């Protein structure tokens, strides 16, 4: 019998705040959009934003575009969305 060590190790915890960053109105959540810059995504989320707004069940928030498709969005962009939105729809991953 031999002993061997697990190669994976601990992962950094990504603890999230337990409360939203702004007061919520559950009946009319603010939905923002993050465009990852891929082809036709701007057209899709613009169309989707219009459709969702027509239902009168939510408010449309900011629509931002990532500067670099495959990299994480910069902090200031995330902060802008977090200040304003209850939900953020992002995409399109492919």
């Amino acid at each position, binding site marked *: 019998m031999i002993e061997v060590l697990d190669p994976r190790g601990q992962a950094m915890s990504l603890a999230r705040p337990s409360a939203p960053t702004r007061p919520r109105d559950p009946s009319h959540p603010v939905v923002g959009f993050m465009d990852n810059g891929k082809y036709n*995504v701007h057209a899709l989320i613009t169309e989707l934003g219009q459709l969702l707004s027509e239902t009168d069940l939510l408010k449309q928030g900011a629509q931002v575009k990532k500067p670099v498709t495959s990299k994480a969005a910069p902090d200031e962009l995330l902060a802008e969305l977090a200040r304003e939105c209850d939900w953020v729809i992002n995409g399109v991953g492919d």
Partner: protein
Amino acid sequence: MEQRGVATITLCTEPFVKQASTIAEMMDMPGLAIIPVAHLAREDVGQDQIHQIALDVQARVNAILNRPERQSAQTQVTSPKPEILHAAGLLQAIELFYERGWTDGLPVVPPTPTQVQAMLASVPRDPQEVVACIPPRQGLATVERIAVNAVMAGCLPGHLPVVIAAVQAMTEDRFGLRAIQSSTHSIAPLLIVNGAVTKRLDINGGSNAFGPGWRSNATISRAIRLILMNIGGSIAGLSDKSTFGHPGKYTYCIAENEAANPWEPLHVERGLPGDASAVTLFAAEAPQNISDHASGTASGLLSTIAGSMISLGSSKLGEMLLVLGPEHAAIIAGDGWSKADVRHYLFEKARLPFEKLKSWGDFLGIADLWPHWWNLTDAHARVPVVRRPEDILIIVAGGAGTRSMWVPGVYAPLSRSVTRAITEM
């Protein structure tokens, strides 16, 4: 956004839903809302199709908005010490690692505590020191965990400082490791080693520099791959969705052939002293051969090289690596050309006609990355393959023969090469 307390809905095409959910689980976000959508990143997708996709997404978004709020994930704290497993013998341990999905497809050396201790003895560091955090799993690469993977790769204890320096280099933000770990692109971190360490560890920069046959080249880079998989959670087919993969994902490491280099080596260009040892990480496609058995002048040879670097489908506007064979380097330097001269020549000559580029679909997506000085309205313009001469990295490697290699990188500004000194030797 989730870390900021904002719920998200992620849209992705069907083949990438599993990747998205796998990475979400790795990042303490089980149950992340993911909506599959039809593939739309094509110029022939019209407004009617986009409207239909938006209608489909709208119905799913409404359902998600109306469901009970998810609970925030709790902080996960696990033991920092490696878990110990038991196997009947070495062969059984090899099979156990296959079963757990902890290999690159080749058998690993079972990392026994004795071997890991021997590896750790080669560096004066606390084994629990966190060297880096590896995406997408956000795995903590402690010195000890790096050593476990280095043993598995077949490294000798003397290799560990090179592996640690490479881990530090590839986790610098400008290297863009998160995207490299999960992209459909066929890219792998290429390790270029410079300085005295190449002789001390017999890292090959001569004949067959890209392999096979040298233990140091093979195992140091294999350790990086195992670290990316096991600590970083880059699992082929799940979190790693490379369309084709890359032979260099098994191992991809060369030394610069400094004895045959008529110019200053790469690490000196990057500001390190000549007697330092260093490793440069470059996110690279596969190396591509350039044959020129006839040219006897710098301009003739570089004309061949420039012609080889022009191809429509490979990534543009990032860095490119030119690996000059010693015989080609001697011809160019013999004509009195410096590295800077080579870069400027290639920047001017390795260009694509705009008319061709316009037919390349990717051009539409990255048009805003082209240099500001380039006139997008000039149909006769010739467009460089990099944004500036400095983005052509030049090293000398390989053995006898009138050949060189060029190695495309990835889009700027996704990834920039990073050079790191190797200390603790």
